[in-house]
């Protein structure tokens, strides 16, 4: 194995992202789908910070951007969880299989 390089970080990011996609597609529970989406988001973050750290060493734009994304993602998750909570109170249920009324 040698030193840590950009390709390792990217592979890790792809693996993480694929796990996220799999999670979104296969889970039935809304909370788990949210978790999987967070996983995908962080995979992208990882990719971004890797590229920033290796290719743009003189500046820290990528790092700053990541801080922003994390902050906003936190707010977004809070919102999404609130929706799920509300959904649960209405339907006593978080199974997305059964939540299919928003169609024709």
């Amino acid at each position: 194995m040698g030193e840590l390089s950009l390709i390792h970080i990217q592979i890790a990011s792809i693996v993480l992202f694929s796990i996220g996609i799999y999670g979104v597609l296969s889970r039935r529970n809304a909370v788990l789908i949210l978790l999987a989406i967070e996983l995908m988001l962080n995979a992208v973050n990882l990719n971004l910070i890797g590229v920033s750290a290796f290719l743009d060493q003189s500046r820290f734009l990528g790092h700053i951007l990541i801080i922003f994304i994390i902050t906003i993602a936190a707010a977004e998750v809070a919102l999404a969880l609130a929706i799920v909570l509300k959904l649960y109170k209405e339907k006593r249920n978080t199974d997305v299989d059964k939540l299919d009324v928003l169609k024709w």
Partner: protein
Amino acid sequence: MYELNEAALQAPTNLGIVWWAPILYIVSFVVLGLLSRTKIKYTYFVPIIVSFISIGIFITVFSTYVSHSWERYSCDTIGVCWNGIDPWFVIGDIQMHFGAIIDGLTVTMLGLITIVGSLVIIYSVSYMHDDPRKTWYFSCISFFIAAMLFLVLANNLLLIYVAWELVGLGSYLLIGFWYGKQTAVDAAKKAFITTRIGDVGLMVGILILGTSFTTSSGAIGTFHIPDIILAAQQGMYSTSELNWGCLLIFLGAMGKSAQFPLHIWLPDAMEGPTPVSALIHAATMVTAGIYLTARLFPLYEISTIALTVVTVIGLITAIIAASMALVMNDLKKILAYSTVSHLGLMIFGIGTGGYAAAMLHLVAHGFSKALLFLSAGNIMHSLHEETDIRKMGNLRHYMPITTICFLIGALSLSGIPPLSGYFSKDMLLHGVTHGKIDFTNIYFLLSLGFIFLSSLYMTRVFILVFWSKSTTEYKDIHEAPKTMNIPIIILTFFSIVFGIITCLIYQDTLLDIMHLVTWGFLDTPLHFEFDLILTILSVGFALSGIIAGYFLYQENYVNKSVFNSGLFKSLNSLISQKYYLDDAYNWIVSNVVNKVTAIVSYIDRAFVNDIGINSPGEAIRATSNKLRYIQTGKVYNYALFIVLSISVIVLIWIFLETGKIL
């Protein structure tokens, strides 16, 4: 466009005061319109004050016009134009100035409108005293007069068109003022629709004249009347453009001035209050067509076809309407047909080139006819809205003032000297004969026949209403109150002296005023000339009409049963049925217009609506009905779709970048 007529733009600014006349009437309209739902009494003082001010404005403008600027009016300008400096609006090359023409024609019309208008307003105060909606009535009258003032002031055809339509609206509101009566509603609609038919022609004619010539500098067209006239005289229009323009504009004038065959609305317009009839017949509505034809007279001088049409239509109208006035039994309808007939005479006068004589007759007839209508209003007021002259008679004992005034008005319209109708008719005959009396001239013979008819029907009305024995008992009949009689007496005074003043005493000043817009292409009489033979002929025909009427209707010299047999009977029924014109229009509307519109509406429904508009909508609805089942509502289906689409997009992107997949 201003290279054509620079001089017309430079005007004495003090004549701008003339705008205040219509503006004040508009103010009166708005104020009374806002007050019309309130219970405030005495609102009529607003239009009365406004009308006095506008008479003052007329006198100011008149004296400025007469005293100042005589020499400046040579043949290449059309009097004074007062313009704003900035254009009203600009479309391409056409600059539109919101301006006024102030020449003899305008000043004449201003005088007639302001004087008759104010007298009618004063008369209405008593006449409409018990009407609960009289504030709205005075509001409408103000609007009507304001629109007419705008019309005679306007210096371009577009502004004239706007004012023309406003006049139509005013007449609609006033004719249909008592909207509770079905006949009034019908009459208002009839008046509006009939004049609209002419207005279509007017609009197309204006557009033809306004856009169809190009000046040397490349500017296209203008709507300014002086420029149009100059352009026509410089030969910028082709013959057909000028002919069509003039004919179509005359169609508008025919609608407004009730010329045959569009005269049918005017007799029905009687359904409005009687002072309104006086206003419509004397000053505001029907004079608009005469005014427009006179205003554009230089164009008609050039377009001989249009001029011939004007002459013939005028003569037909004059004779036909006079014959109908002879057989009607409704007092106001007789006066209405008399108006139609005299309007025909004016149009005929313009057609024969006696343009100033026509304007003179317009004013003389305006005073006399307003007088007759207001007298008729007096009679109806006393007889509880009775208008059938067969039920009247012997009124001279009960209403002496009305009788005398009515008599003078009737004599003036019959053309008895020295009343004003005599002078104007004589000048019109001068225009027809061109100085030499020729009994092979069909126009001349028919106008003599017209004079006979008009004095005959006037005698009939007068005898049946005031002289012959009454067939019904009158209850509490009385002379009209002073406020109603004073306007009538003033109008009588004008009817007596107007002709003498203009044609004998001050004819150098006053008659010349009316001549500024002619270019002398036609041999028109410029002054009132006393021609003994002509006078003997015209007065003789008028007197013979009166005498014939006396023997026919007072002495019953001829047995009435003659009229119920043979040729007379069919003639009588033909005329009493108004030459079946109303029936013909009804037939045309129900059998032609309605059928055509049914076909058009079927095409519209079947092709445009069903096939053109509804069928694409139906197709989209059917397709989407099938496609909507794609939506499952399951989140992971959407997610999968997103993932797959992104994969495909990425693959395509890679392919486009590198030329191969993976």
